[in-house]
């Protein structure tokens, strides 16, 4: 499965390019409006072309991500997918109750994490040693909160609550909570 870091790099490049382009366009516009023009009104055809571009962009973005980001389709169909391994985690009183520590996963396995909360809204996120995020989900009390993930790379991951649950939850971090082995 494509690494989320790769997806984020793609987003970084695309968004940076877009930002530089739009800043240049607005700056150019701001310069040109102070200059005398050729008195021809702005062609409506260009306006409608821009409108069509916005529609195509809005529609295509989500189709492209559906086809290129594997965890998106996997998440939508997760109730139909049988996981290779399952972990059930409870959260209460700002503490994660893990079935094992670390939770051992074999490289290539599709794993389901089912997390429940008995009191507040928390988050469930796995982070690499460099603090970058692998994935996250919200954990709502009174509901089953599950996520399916395929682990293709060896490594250890820290578990952190990704949602604010009051000052008592500021240190809801479990180092090396997950280990992916051969």
């Amino acid at each position, binding site marked *: 499965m494509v690494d*989320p870091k790769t*997806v*984020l790099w793609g*987003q*970084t490049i695309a*968004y940076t390019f877009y*930002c530089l382009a*739009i*800043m240049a366009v*607005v700056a150019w*516009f*701001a310069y*040109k*409006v*102070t*200059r005398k*023009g050729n008195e021809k*009104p*702005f062609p409506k055809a260009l306006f409608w072309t821009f*409108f069509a571009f*916005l529609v195509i962009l*809005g529609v295509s*973005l*989500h189709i492209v*991500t*559906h086809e290129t*980001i594997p965890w*998106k389709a996997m*998440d*939508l169909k997760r109730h139909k997918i049988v996981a290779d391994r399952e972990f059930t985690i409870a959260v209460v009183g700002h503490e994660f109750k893990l079935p094992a520590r670390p939770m051992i996963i074999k490289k290539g396995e599709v794993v389901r994490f089912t997390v429940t909360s008995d*009191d*507040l*809204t928390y*988050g469930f996120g796995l*982070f690499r040693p460099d*603090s*970058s*995020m*692998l*994935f*996250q*989900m*919200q954990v*709502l*009390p*009174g*509901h*089953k*909160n*599950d*996520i399916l993930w395929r682990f293709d790379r060896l490594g250890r991951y820290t578990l*952190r609550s*990704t*949602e*604010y649950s*009051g*000052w*008592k939850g*500021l*240190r809801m971090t479990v180092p090396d909570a997950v280990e992916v082995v051969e």
Partner: protein
Amino acid sequence: MKFTETLLQGEQGLFKPDSLTPMQKMTLRFVVVGLVYYAFAIIEGMIMRVFEVVHLPFVTEKQFYAILTAHPLVGIFGSTYSIVFGAFLFLVPFLMKKPLWSLRLGHWTFGLVAGGTFVFWFAGFLSHYSPLYTLYWPLPADFSQFSVGGGIFFIAGIALVMAGAALFVINVFKTITYTPPGRDKQPAGALLGSALGLSGIRNLFRKEKKEHLVSLPVAAIARGSVDMALNTTVILFTGVLILVYMVGHVLGFDLKHSGIDALLYKNWFWWGLDLIADGLVLVFVAGAWYLLATLITGKKLFMENIARAALFVELVVSWTVWSHHLMSDQAQPGILKLVSGEMVTAFELITQGLAFAITLITLWNARPLKMTHPLKFLFGGLLGFALAVPAGIMQADLGLNRILHNTQWVVGPHVHVAILVGLTMTLYAAVYLLLPVLTNGAKLWSDKLANVHFWCHLLGGIGMGAFMGMAGLQGMLRRTLYFEGEFRPYMILAALSGALLLVAFLAFFLNIVMTVGLRGVIGIFLPAKLKTRDLLPGSK
């Protein structure tokens, strides 16, 4: 004039508070209070910016989160609502060419918003009540972490602001539809239909199109006010719910939190809050852009009917996008995430994109224009939304949300660039444009300071959003304190950018004080000497 003389009397002594009508005074009071609360937000914002670099010894972690809770509420309700209410309570009667329906209601709105903001800010300051503005159930009622007394006053303060907002909505719609004494009866139903866009829809099916009775900026204000009314209802209801638990706790009853479903609450809460963020903000801003473009150029708006239709579409879209806040909530139905969260949300690219293009083309068709301060800040506002809306569309994607939700990406390139660059620069454009009208000819003290204000605000706002976004892409979460110095280089750069925003505000603040003078600022709050319902002195 010497500096101290100007500080007291204003630039060339031109600002005479005694010459102001009651309407002008009310509007200027809203603006002054709005700027005071902006100062609160920016100072507390800088405290947090520095805290993210190095934990300050005189600020506790609880205090940090109390500041984080109050910060967006002071910024939106205290500052933005004040400035917007002041501007619109002046502009609606101005554009409808009749007096405001009720000046008294306007004063009540002013008092409730200003007072309510101070109540919740002070409650948070003293008690460190800090469930954050998101109020995710059952955190607001978690009395093992938060003071119930502080919470009661906090929620009461929010309720006061909502009451002020409700009175504003009533005043706007009554002003649009009522007949002033001594005038021919106005067609209330038709005016309301035009303001809301119903007559525009009927026009689609008519061979002979009926003229719009209400100007486009007033239509924008009316439609945004629909979202404000709905949002006010949601927040008031939510506040009452939280208060029930608080009062119960005070009386010794331990009400079960599980009586309220956290997912249903979150859906209800975000439906309501998105009526601000994806509703009235976008509609009001688009209306402001159109008004600014037509006032700056003196020309008609390009493709006005399309602009009017887009405002209506945006209103309807705002009711249906809330699921983009629940993309990482696994119990949320997938169909809602796809339709509401992704597809309908993507419509905002179209509606805001159209507003952006229509405004720019209106300016283009009026070349050459002089690069005045209002025009400069209008470009800043346009750029802000051009940067922030695509950032929002990206995070409202199921695949990307999995790795972006609750990171600094959301609050950096999206929220702060939208609010600080997009929204605030649009408001500043209106302030600079309307200043001579509202003050009966006061002259801006320093153009150089206005330029410092512009560049520092633009670069600071974009810079802060960018560095927060970079940290978010590296995995830095929002609402989280780090204790090992992770992401510090990004936070240092974000803090420096925040400092630029502070410099911008100080430049603007000094410029305004020197323009109207300290006596002028005090004079704004004294009772008006002129007894008239007219907006401007001597006008009919």
